[in-house]
């Protein structure tokens, strides 16, 4: 069982790629992706992953995450408002049912809603195709209901997938996935029908991997964000780049981290030639202006490799 390679993309050399030209001659498309999540206290078990590290109710870990929806999100949002940075929310769609005020606040700001499944405690592992299709339809309907938007992007709940996920997303008309970390630019994804692209998200400057798993101090985290920005901004002079800042309100919205979060936003927004975009806008621009050229370059590379 299993295969050696995901089979979702072909090799494309880093040098001599087609040029991506972002709007306004920007070097970098910057986007901010807060994960708006709910982790259930007592979810049904998935055979491949335990829901909580401790026996239910895991009060410590449940409450830590719940902090994001009670307190953290509002601080994070205020900081983003202060710097005029829009969010593209990676949404467990059930959050809208549980906490309509949160959905309303995101909608009022014109933020993009994309799907991060129903709950962060309902993993995709072991779903049959019909079940996964129903999950995608649930997300589409929920996001239409709560935002008026047509769902365009997908980050699998808790980054749990099946081998069919990408095909099913494309069939459902989703245009971009965030679950592939193989590149700094958007790229075509191979699917059995329709069209799907990958848009860079990040596990390198994600607050979860840095602060929670990586024990970074708030200052370390800000320095990492700035360094990531500096390098992509530099390289963006030659070919447009993408930088995503993924966040979790239960982490970035803690009181002791707000100052450093604001420092990072202050730094990034003080630059010109940055396109402050949403995931959908980046995907759409790439598909309209660069998809064909990238697909052709990949096809040429395939022929050369025989």
């Amino acid at each position, binding site marked *: 069982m299993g295969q050696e390679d995901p089979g979702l993309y072909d090799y494309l050399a880093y040098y001599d790629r087609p040029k991506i030209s972002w709007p306004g001659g920007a070097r970098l498309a910057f986007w901010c992706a807060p994960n708006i999540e*709910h982790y*259930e*206290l*007592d979810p*049904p*078990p*998935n*055979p*491949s992953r335990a829901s909580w590290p*401790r*026996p*239910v*109710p895991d*009060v*410590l870990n*449940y*409450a*830590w*995450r*719940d*902090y994001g*929806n*009670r*307190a953290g999100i*509002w*601080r994070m949002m205020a900081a983003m408002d202060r710097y005029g940075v829009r969010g593209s929310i990676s949404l467990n769609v*059930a959050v809208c*049912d*549980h*906490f*309509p*005020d949160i959905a309303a606040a995101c909608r009022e700001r014109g933020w993009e809603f994309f799907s991060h499944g*129903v*709950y962060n405690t*309902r993993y995709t592992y*072991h*779903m049959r195709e019909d*079940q996964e299709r*129903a*999950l995608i339809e649930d997300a589409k309907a929920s996001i239409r209901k709560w935002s008026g938007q047509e769902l365009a992007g997908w980050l699998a709940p808790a980054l749990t997938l099946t081998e069919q996920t990408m095909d099913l997303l494309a069939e459902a008309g989703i245009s971009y996935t965030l679950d592939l970390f193989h590149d700094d630019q958007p790229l075509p994804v191979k699917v059995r029908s329709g069209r799907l692209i990958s848009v860079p998200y990040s596990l390198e400057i994600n607050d979860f991997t840095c602060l929670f798993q990586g*024990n970074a*101090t*708030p*200052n370390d985290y800000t320095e990492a964000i700035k360094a990531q920005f500096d390098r992509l901004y530099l390289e963006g002079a030659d070919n447009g780049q993408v930088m995503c800042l993924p966040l979790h309100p239960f982490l970035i919205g*803690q*009181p*002791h*981290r*707000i*100052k*450093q979060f604001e420092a990072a936003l202050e730094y990034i927004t003080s630059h010109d030639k940055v396109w402050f975009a949403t995931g959908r806008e980046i995907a759409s621009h790439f598909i309209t202006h660069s998809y064909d050229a990238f697909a052709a370059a990949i096809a040429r590379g395939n022929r050369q490799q025989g």
Partner: protein
Amino acid sequence: MTLPANYFDYPFRRPGMDHDRYLYSNLFTRKPVVWPGDARIALWIVPTLEFFPLDMVAKPVKPAGGLERPYPDYWNYTLRDYGNRVGFARIFRALERRGLRASVAMSSRLAERYPHVLAEVGRLGFELVAHGIDMNHIHAAPLAPEVERQWIETCLASLRRLSGQPVKGWYSPAHAETSHTLDLVADAGCDYVCDWVNDDMPYRLNTKAGALYAMPHAYEISDLQIFHFYKYKPAQFIQQVIDHFELLYREAASSGGRIVALSLRPWLSGVPHRIQAIEEVLDRLLRRGGVWSATGAEILACWTAQQ
């Protein structure tokens, strides 16, 4: 492998939480509270004194600091014991010299074994908070409710008898609860718990024995998280606590009084190379002004009177 039949059932997908223990509430849309003297910050210091038995088993939950080397693990036993012999005294002295109040969470076995520690709590007028029997009594499934009831009653009876205090606060060892803990703790006469880390202010919990309140036990500025899990240096502890304090201090100007909870374990904060950082934090908070040093019971009473 297949998914359970209820994997796509969402029985709690409706406004509010996915349980009935408490209501959802946005921290920033609540009625502002006023602390005595118009203080911006209620400073709630929670020295946590724990007994880790040499023969403990780290199941079903290994508490932070729990013994894990093969028996007899003198290394970890004595390091924790150091906190209850030496470290706590440094922390208590730092509080005493600054005239600060505290809520001391304590294992009942520790109170029984070390009367001197309990006497110091009494002498300094600190509130005593129940912290379970010891760190080998973790309240986690599949603990039977009748056994858990007995543990809670044993712990509270001992602490109440030895201290003469009513003991109205409960802090479960390792922040761990079963689905019955809140009901049992309320039934045993407690007013508040310190296990929930999802808020910066108190909020009401529903139990079978009436109301109980969650006190905001800030986890990310606890010495446990900063020193034990994040493994930060003392300078970062200072930075993190001060930044936390300053942000809440600023919020208090528009949102009403806030709470800064400082959770201190003597085996971490009471060691010689860290105590100075704790003292510096206390001095800097106090120099800022607008700080009300109080026990959990005092803060809760002030808060509930304004709801």
